């Protein structure tokens, strides 16, 4: 089982499952992060506490803490 927070820069992944609470899940979905969508890891902020990903055409920043709740597979 791999989570988004374990991915390396420039990797492309497919979202398998959102292990978040219902509320956070809705938040992620509203940003387009949902099952079946592909995401690209763009950057890590200093200290790797925050990461930037690209979903569709949108760039999204999220904390690795939350990225840890997103199950993915590399494609």
């Amino acid at each position: 089982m791999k989570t988004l927070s374990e991915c390396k820069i420039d990797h492309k992944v497919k979202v398998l499952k959102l292990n978040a609470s219902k509320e956070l899940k809705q938040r992620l979905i509203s940003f387009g992060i949902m099952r079946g969508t592909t995401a690209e890891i763009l950057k890590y902020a200093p200290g790797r506490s925050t990461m930037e990903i690209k979903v569709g055409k949108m760039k999204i920043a999220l904390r690795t803490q939350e990225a840890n709740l997103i199950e993915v597979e590399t494609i």
Partner: protein
Amino acid sequence: MKDIKIALVGQPNVGKSMLVNSIANSHLHVGNFSGVTVDKTEVLFDHEGYHFTVVDLPGTYAFTDYTIEERVTHQYLTSGEYDLIINVMDSTNLVKNLQLTSELMSMGKNVVIALNMSDEAKKEGIDIDALRMSKLLGIPCIKVSAITKEGMGELLDALIATKELSTQNSKLVFSEPTEEEILNIEKYLAKHKHQSINSHRNIAINLLKNDKATYKLLHSDPIWTELQSIIVKGSKHIELHHNTDDVREAFAEEYLSFNKGVVEEVLTQVPSRKESSITTKIDNILINPIVGIPIFLFLMWGLFQLTFTIGSIPMDWIDGFFGWLGDTVGPLIKNDDLRSLVVDGIIAGVGAVLLFVPNIVILFIGIALLESTGYMSRVAFLLDGFFHKFGLHGQSFIPLVSGFGCSIPAYMSARILKNDRDRLLTLFIIGFMSCGAKLPVYVLLIGAFLPPEMAGNALFAIYISGAVLGLIAAKILKLTAFKGPEEPFVMEMPKYRLPSLKLVWHTVFTKTMMYVKKAGTFIAAASILIWFLSNYPHNATIDKEYESKIENAQSADMKKELANEMQSEHLEQSYLGTIGKFSEPFFAPLGFDWKMSVALQTGLAAKEVVVSTLGVLYAVGDDVDEQSNSLIGAISKNIPFASAVSFLVVIMIYLPCLAASIVFTREAGGVKYFVYLFVFTSSVAYGLGFIAYHIALRFSS
């Protein structure tokens, strides 16, 4: 004249406010980071016999009610107090934007889609068949550009046409099992002849996806008990099909596949020449793990340097103008009391405040640029790790930086933080970010004690140390008063955009006018009050006593000295002197004399008043020649260095102005929070002021 009331909805960063600006030429604040339009703003204009009211609602990604903005928008849309919806979209990101549209389509209101940023889409090689899209969705879609003003007329025509149309048949298509369940509920509603404004199909969709507002509507209906079991069964069926236990997730997936289908049919993408977009290239530098933060710090430093150096040029002109005005108006007024009121009270007080307009304009331009280019979100990204350590949130950065401009918008922008505890914590810290109104006080004190070449650095140091103090305070508060779980950090990084001049101008102009208006009304009134308190009661015996002394004085110097002595004796027995004397012992450990004590207290009304108070209190008892008549000269002569340092520290930390305090209380949600804020800031200010005074004493002796 017919009325059309329109709700303007869209995801964040699609240029909604800018669009209203283009339609109506209004004075709205538009920015390029999530959460500029916090409250709904109304814009009114007339067009072809129609009276338009456009309600600009806060940007929202979807109706998850996650943030206050989303709640405001959702509530307004369900209230139904409008005729139709304009759904503004970013043409360069259709799939994402359609997510909100699909939710709007089941609200039972007519929608017009504005495909905004079509000029940008063209540049990226995107071509949208708007006509085909209109047919597919059953909603008129109009290509527009808020920047080039393309399509504005068509948009207005479409609005009028849609208003005249009774009902719109939007064509949202779901997967087979979902359609089946929708039909089930629809049939049930039809069988029981359910009366409603919204169509049965829309009600069915809303019920299946667990829409709270629709639940509430039907809850008291007798059919509810039976209906409920149908809904539960239906939802379960849909969940099963999507292999999830969350029906909203299932619907999100339904929407996505429908939207992808639509986009597939209407959008053709020519491989664009500008590969690897500019945004990515800029991001490689600006949010680079190594140079990102240094660049940010450098930009902030540069901003403060500019504020000081360029700002000082027009300041000389303004200073000169008010000096001239006082000299010209003074002799025209015969009555002594009246002349003193106008020249020493109003002109001196308002002049002292208007003097700082150039600084404030530059600072506001800087902040407006940060906002409108999209850099603000990058900074939040860079700093979240850091802020998180202090118990704050990367997005706290936005209210905190706004706090450097003015605390009032800063308090309001703290609404982007959803978690109440995080928001309260940020609200308590905002005051540590020195607002624009404190700038005059700093400029004055720095000017009085430091050489000009040091001024920019000193100012930067003050702002930074305020921010550092704020972070420490945040950590302490987080560990004590605000313990608890944290808010997740998920944020869009919008595209970089060249700031539109018009947009920056609007922002800076409105904010500056707010400051100037304050100078003209509130501060003028405060100046008059302070002038009155410092001139009355007038003791005639002092006049008589000194008159004879001055007449008998030998040299001109002696005469001047005696005149000064007379003035300060007048001041000391005035109302203001009494207040200052009364509170002097309390402030004595900080090294304040009674004049400084008074200035500090008048500063509770507005920070700008600190300067005008000092102006009235010190300029009065001074020589008349040009050189020493300036306030800066008077202060460096009358205030010891150590006292100035502790005064500065207290100004940095203590309670924000009256207006900001009111906003704080409103945003925090109760008077008790204001009491906390008062106790918190006052004790910190007093304690640190005391320490700073004693350290400075040691250095200066």
